[in-house]
């Protein structure tokens, strides 16, 4: 990420260097017994923290408007704190006001700019949240995201499902689940290679999260099983959605109609996430045997 910000870094270095040159030129060094070490410690720490902010911004944010605000705000803070630290070692002549202005003015301006940047960041986060809908419900924990499909896994689903069950039951609303299973995915991996399997999974997860509503949540329950949580949805509605999904999913299969997907829907009546997920496994097993029966020539 920092490679995007080379010019910014160069500019900051030049700015700090010019500050240093200015200070050295206009003042003369203090004797070592005049140093106030407590002040040096306090101001040094502040400076280090501000530099740490700059580093974090550079290393984690892509270039853009919000980044510029955040960056230049913090840079002004760094500049101000830097001069502040320098004056512990350098004494300026009484008549020169420039240095004390340079010390105290950039900090508040920098704070204002930084605040403006934070407001922008807040807006941006809201936009990202909108973008994430269908992949995330009330909880966020980036360690639980599956890096391949960018969906949450089983632990996340258990936590969210428990909360949703309690909410829905207290409000007497219907909650449904869609369970999607890839038949014999290990076989698919074996025939087409692991890379093809991984590509298929990520395409499938893209399609799933784009085809469901914003309020729904898709999770990767196991290697080859996905579960979608449909809040506020009764079984008939879930069946319609499942039908719609089946049509969409048929696009994904290749020429040999591989791999075969099984999709089942269920209404959650259980009182715990554990029981509901067990029920989901049973429903899936039933759907698979039913599918096997219909495929046999009669």
């Amino acid at each position, binding site marked *: 990420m920092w490679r995007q910000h080379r010019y910014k870094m160069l500019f900051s270095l030049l700015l700090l260097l010019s500050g240093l040159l200015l200070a050295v030129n206009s003042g003369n060094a203090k004797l070592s017994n005049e140093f106030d070490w407590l002040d040096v410690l306090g101001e040094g720490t502040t400076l280090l923290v501000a530099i740490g902010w700059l580093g974090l911004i550079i290393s984690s944010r892509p270039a853009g408007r919000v980044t510029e605000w955040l960056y230049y705000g913090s840079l002004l803070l760094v500049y101000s704190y830097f001069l502040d630290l320098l004056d512990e070692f350098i004494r300026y002549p009484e008549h020169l006001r420039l240095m004390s202005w340079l010390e105290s003015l950039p900090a508040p301006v920098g704070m204002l700019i930084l605040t403006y940047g934070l407001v922008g960041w807040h807006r941006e986060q809201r936009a990202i949240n909108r973008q994430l809908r269908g992949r995330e419900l009330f909880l966020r924990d980036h*360690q639980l*995201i*599956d*890096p*391949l499909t960018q969906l949450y*896994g*089983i*632990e996340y689903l*258990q936590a969210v499902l428990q909360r949703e069950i309690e909410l829905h039951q207290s409000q007497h609303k219907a909650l449904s689940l869609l369970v999607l299973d890839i038949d014999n995915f*290990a076989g698919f*991996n*074996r025939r087409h*290679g*692991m*890379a093809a399997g*991984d590509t298929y999974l990520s395409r499938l997860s893209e399609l799933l999260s784009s085809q469901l509503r914003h309020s729904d949540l898709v999770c990767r*329950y*196991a*290697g080859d*099983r996905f579960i979608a949580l449909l809040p506020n949805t009764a079984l008939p509605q879930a069946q319609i959605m499942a039908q719609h999904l089946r049509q969409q999913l048929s696009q994904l299969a290749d020429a040999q109609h591989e791999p075969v997907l099984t999709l089942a829907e269920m209404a959650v009546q259980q009182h715990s996430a554990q029981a509901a997920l067990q029920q989901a496994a049973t429903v899936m097993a039933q759907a698979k045997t039913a599918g096997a029966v219909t495929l046999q020539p009669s």
Partner: protein
Amino acid sequence: MSRRHFGYQDKVLLLQHGSTELLALAQRRGAVLHKLLSGTGIFEQDLHKPLGRLHHTDWLTLLQNCRQQVQSPELPYLLGSALLNSRYISLCQSLQYAKNLRQALAQLYYFRHQLFPCFYIRLYQQQHCIVLEFKPALGLANQQAFMLTVLCSLLLGLIKQQLGTLSGVSLQLQQSAESPALQQQLFGGLNLSFNQVANSLSIPLALWQQEFNHANAAEFNAARRTCRQLNHVLPKQRALPESVCRLQRRALPQLLNQEQIAAALGLSSSSLKRQLSQHQTNFASLLDEVRRDAARQLLRQGNYSNRQLALKLGYSDEHNFRRAFKRWTGLIPSSFKGLFNFN
């Protein structure tokens, strides 16, 4: 002695036997190649050389890097099945064409130095099952659980592919369950238990002789020939801790001291000590481990008195044995036996 052990400097692993699969899996999950390779001594341009090699410590560093960069609990399972189905590993190809599980596992065990030789196996029979107990053959540090999962995923994948069922197979793991539901899902329809005394996989007798789906003697022999040819470039050698345990185990009830073992392995006593410490272990704890396993096995087999056990394990008297046994299991031998008879 033909069975050599490998030192710290020896490059005993082929890049094509695992590393390329692992790297591909991690890269598809968003990891960056140069970060994965950092600190490993593997060069990017070597990755596609057919006989490129690496140290076993490089492999451990590589695993560490992968786990840092890719937060994916399914990684070891995928690696196991990728290894099993890799076209570059003739050993794994040969497993698929074996006559039955017995032949496949014998083949895997004989040529195990061609994959990552991090576990060795002790076999015993228990009721209607044959149990494979996995012992770490070298210092794996904190990668042991990962490698064990890779191995189990490979074995279970083989059984599932070739026999179509996992019924009756059960897996006991020493580690505590981090997320049992997830592990259960990933292993798929297997009897799984945690916090056990040993890492072991028990397979019903019926499965051992059942014919494999793709059994093919000609293909098997061809693949085995390739494995033998590979033995010329990749000589059969074991990790040092494994060799030490093997020697000590054979010598029981006599106890070998460090000099004797070092002499048998063609090392000086101090370099044995140094090399063991590179595997994060030492001579005394290996000796202790050998005796612990032997004691467990003897108790499982028959009804020995403490005195007999102490003699068989080279303890000077039964009190010392009792004390050691209490340290290993937290139980005195008699209650351990009781535990066994009731089951």
